[in-house]
């Protein structure tokens, strides 16, 4: 290991806002989001590519931000849970998770909502099976998933016209 770790300059857009930063090459994307940008809605659950609490959208695709180096997001468009709302208005996915009681402790919820965002951007009317497959990478230890399913169905319904 070198004594001094050289930092690398990157540019990325997070929730529509452009950022230029210098980061250590070993920094994970989730660390950049939480610590450098102070967007703490993205959670670290397992840190082993299992639980999906750190899920964000990178160029529209759901990814586990604990399993990507920050430098790999150079030039990327990132969306975190903070980017879902629009001028104080909850996104239909956020509203549906609340209305359908699709959460209890809420730790997994940001990741689940971004997995939902990718699903509904590709499939406006997903079947129950398609929903289950889309959220298979997000672990929830409270709800038993039934209300999460209902929330995603509700979100799909309310976004149909969009």
């Amino acid at each position, binding site marked *: 290991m070198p004594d001094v770790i050289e930092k690398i300059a990157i540019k990325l857009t997070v929730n529509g806002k452009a950022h230029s930063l210098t980061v250590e090459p070993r920094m994970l994307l989730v660390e950049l989001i939480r610590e450098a940008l102070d967007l703490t809605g993205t959670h670290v659950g397992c840190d082993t590519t*299992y*639980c*999906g609490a750190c899920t964000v959208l990178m160029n529209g695709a759901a990814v*586990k931000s604990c399993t990507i*180096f920050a*430098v790999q997001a*150079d030039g990327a468009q990132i969306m975190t849970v903070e980017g879902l709302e629009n001028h104080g208005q909850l996104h239909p996915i956020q509203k549906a998770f609340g209305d359908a009681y699709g959460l209890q402790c809420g730790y997994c919820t940001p990741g689940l909502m971004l*997995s939902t965002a990718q699903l509904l951007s590709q499939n406006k009317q997903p079947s129950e099976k398609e929903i289950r497959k889309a959220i298979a*990478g997000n672990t929830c230890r409270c709800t038993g998933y039934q209300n999460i399913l209902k929330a995603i169905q509700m979100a799909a319904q309310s976004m149909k016209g969009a």
Partner: protein
Amino acid sequence: MLMEFGEDAKLLAGGQSLIPLMKLRYANPSHLVDLNFISGTSYIREENEALRFGALTRHAQIEASTASANIPIIHDCAAGIADVQVRNRGTIGGSLAEADPSGDWATVLMTLQTEVRCQRSKSDRRVQLADFIKDAYTTALAHDELISEVVVKTPPKGSGGAYLAFKRSAPVYPTASAAVQLTMDGEICKDAAIALGCVGLTAIKAKDAEGVLRGQRVTAKTIATAVEATRAVAEPQSDMRGSADYKRTLVGSLLKRAIDVALRRARGEQIEASHIYA
């Protein structure tokens, strides 16, 4: 760069295995060379009765591709690896170069004619997949070589395949898996390829079981004999995913179901199959 940094450097493709391994300190490379910014390495092309996958083609791209849907066993594999997030990042080239004993691609591609193109800065060679995978986490790649492309020959008409893997939940590696590709001529099996995953240091080609089916009418009895022959070549280890006995039983049951799906697909039926989990 690989020449410059030597053997301690590692290539970073999708990172969905390597980054977790680094966090656990199982991998401790002095340098990482990120391949993701090289353009033109992510593609699926149909050419000369083969599918050519750029090394950086993500599992999700393969899952969504109509070209790979024509070889259902490839779709079974791509659509079932881990979860959406991992499939959005993980790559076919990375999976083969990692050579994890529980990886999915090597097992599946072992049942097809698969060539791995290995590239150095100025030369390029093609290695048959069976010769490419040497041991657990060990391949024929030299330290200054990388995979540029994976070339899979399209199976002949009348051929059907299936891949079934059993896992406890989506994001984990399977407990056991079975891949089978059968080329049928009416009721007679002209050719059979069978490979087992997660029950040895590498994917295991079940040659005895293939011999049981090849040239024969496929009946409940021949299938049962092939399944027994398969269980005999599995070399599972007991671990947190299950005991060796359990995995030996499981891999046989997966093969039996995979043969059923492969036969029906060979007859032209459209059947969904993939990883099985709760």
